[in-house]
């Protein structure tokens, strides 16, 4: 399953809930969730822990828009919107954690 998150983990529990419940699949951080994938943010430790269980992607245009394109945590893969489309196909199903 592709888990799509669009909220900053510093102000909303969507990502935390996803990591608590999800058992497998890929995680794509979009919109305000991209902050989770930046070095030095308070959620970094939890994200790194999650990277052991999930492959984590970030929507690069959303990261760039927020001025953090150069702060991506190593091991998180940046994708464009085409890459987003590909992830919805390579996973059997998807869930937007709104």
């Amino acid at each position, binding site marked *: 399953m592709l888990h799509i998150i669009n909220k900053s983990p510093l102000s909303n529990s969507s990502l935390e809930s996803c990591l608590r419940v999800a058992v497998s699949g890929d995680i794509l951080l979009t*919109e305000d969730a991209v902050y989770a994938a930046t070095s030095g943010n308070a959620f970094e430790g939890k994200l790194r822990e999650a990277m052991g269980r999930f492959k984590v992607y970030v929507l690069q245009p959303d990261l760039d828009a927020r001025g953090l394109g150069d702060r991506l945590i190593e091991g998180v893969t940046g994708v464009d*919107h085409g890459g*987003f*489309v590909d992830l*919805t*196909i390579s996973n059997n199903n*998807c869930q*937007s954690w*709104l």
Partner: protein
Amino acid sequence: MKFGIVVNEGPYQHQASDSAYLFAKAAIAKGHEVWRVFFYHDGVNNASKLTEPPQDDRHIVNRWTKLAEEHKVDLVVCVAAAMRRGIREENLAAGFRISGLGQLVEAGTKCDRLITFGD
């Protein structure tokens, strides 16, 4: 692949409809079909032809209309959600149609993937 897209937030207020549009465009560019976009909750406001953003901003409503015209994307606005929020046939932008929630279920049953964009 056949894609269905759900948009749950209004334009300009939330990035959801921008993200949905860029996803749809990318899917089409890769040769996939975007069969239907279903607008629910405040997403119905994407269909208002009274929308007039500042000149230097993107025109979210017209962008959807163009997508429908050029790629035969079915833009469906939920009737119950639309009635609640004052979206009617008389202020509906070109390319959109108003119909029931069954159209959302149908998108779920007929499409290979249904992707939701919301808050």
